[in-house]
Structure formats: C-alpha cells, structure tokens
C-alpha cells in the first residue's frame, strides 16, 4: 500500500460521489454528487503529476529549477475545472426550471416520462 494510499483515498472520494449520484433522490444532492466526482477526478490528475520534493512549475529569476512537478496535468485540470463549472451551472439552471414546473426537488415525484 505504501506510495499508493493517496490514489486509493482519491478513488474513495470518487466512489462517495458515485454513490450519491446513484442513490440519492434529491436533485440538489445529485448535483452535489456530480461535483464530488468532478473534484475526485481533478485531484487524481494532479496527484499523478506530483513529484516528491518538487517545485511549482514557475520559473524564477536567476535560478535554474530542475525538480519541477509535471506541469501538463495542471494545465489539463484547469480545463477540467472549467468544464465542471459549466456543467454545474447548466444543471442548476435545469433544476431551477424543474422546481418551477413540478414544485419539488424529489426525483421520485418527477416521473411524468415513462421508462
């Protein structure tokens, strides 16, 4: 387990989010679950690029830095955070409209569609 505990903790976070999405009946709870999944995936990406005793990937004057952490996952996660924000905003908008139409956040009561 040594050296992998961070990864496993991150996966546990992912599973909590997954459980929330699959199991909860409240729309806001489902949105929260999606958010947690998003955090876990972002976190995993950054964990993967970390280097022990590394430095942040920003150059400083008059210094040559050799042990930088992997900058590529950070760039990717920046994109991924934005995607998470966009999805959250859209789903919240849909949820507000659903509340207006049905008067509830309970998905078992929002079942006008069959199947």
């Amino acid at each position, binding site marked *: 387990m040594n050296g992998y505990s961070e990864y496993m903790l991150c996966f546990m976070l992912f599973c909590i989010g997954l459980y929330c999405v699959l199991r909860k009946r409240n729309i806001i709870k489902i949105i929260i679950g999606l958010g947690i999944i998003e955090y876990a995936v972002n976190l995993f990406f950054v964990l993967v690029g970390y280097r022990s005793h590394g430095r942040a990937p920003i*150059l400083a004057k008059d210094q040559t830095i050799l042990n930088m952490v992997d900058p590529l996952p950070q760039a990717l996660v920046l994109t991924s955070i*934005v995607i998470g*924000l966009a999805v959250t*905003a859209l789903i919240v*908008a849909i949820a*507000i409209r659903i509340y207006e139409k049905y008067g509830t956040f309970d998905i078992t009561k929002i079942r006008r569609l069959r199947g």
Partner: protein
Amino acid sequence: MKNKKEVGMTVIVKTITRLTVGLILLYGIYIVLHGHLSPGGGFAGGVIIALSFIHLMLAFGREVALKKLSQASASILESLGAIMFLGIAILGFIGGYFFLNFFLHKGKPFALFSAGIIPLCNIAICLKVGAGLFAIFAALVLFKGSDEK
C-alpha cells in the same frame, strides 16, 4: 429585509462592498495581466472579475449591478471575447499554422509584455469568462426574481 423599499443587504455590508469591490476588480485585472509570469491567468482572473460584479449584485440588489453591466452587454462582451480568441487562433495562419504563436520576438522573460500571444489570449479569455459567468448568474437570479413575484 422587512422593509421592501430597501433593496439588497444592510448598511454595513453595503459600505464594505463599496470599499472592496474596486479592489477585487483591480486584483482580477492584475491576475489576468500577469498570467504568463505568475500563477493565475485569464480564467481565474475572469472569475474574480465576475465575482466582483456578483458581489455588487448580492449586496445592492440586481438593479444596481445591471446598471453597471447589463445582461445584453454582458452577452455581447462574451461573444466578442470568444471571437477575439478565435481570431488570435486564426491569425496564427499568417505564420502558416492554426494557433501559431506568431510573434517572432517573444520579448524579455519576466517582462510584462512578453510571451507573444499568451497575454492577448489571457485578456480574451478574461473578457469571455467574466462576462459569461456574470450573464449566467444574472440569468439565474433574474429568473428567481420573477419567480417569486
């Protein structure tokens, strides 16, 4: 909140908002302009700028904030930001490639005006993000407002 004439929050909040909102805006602009030198960049700066307007809206009510930046103009600014970013990407064709960093002289490292297209892209993204997130928020709040009446 009982008094219907009073829009927004209490006097304390309003006073503090008046003092801080400009600073928040300035900080956002600083982060955007120094995106290629220090942590931050167009996206984070854009969100901070959007947050400063949202701050106004939360404290003073939506009319005041929308007077400063109406929803229609936010929408236009957003489209402009998007077109500007795409334009920078297309301008790369003058060097022969889509999205080429077409400045031949990248400038001195650590200077504010360096790194070719990167600061320009940051500004475009900042416009887009700031205006876009403000538009989203205004839409959600306005929707809720009309819902309650």
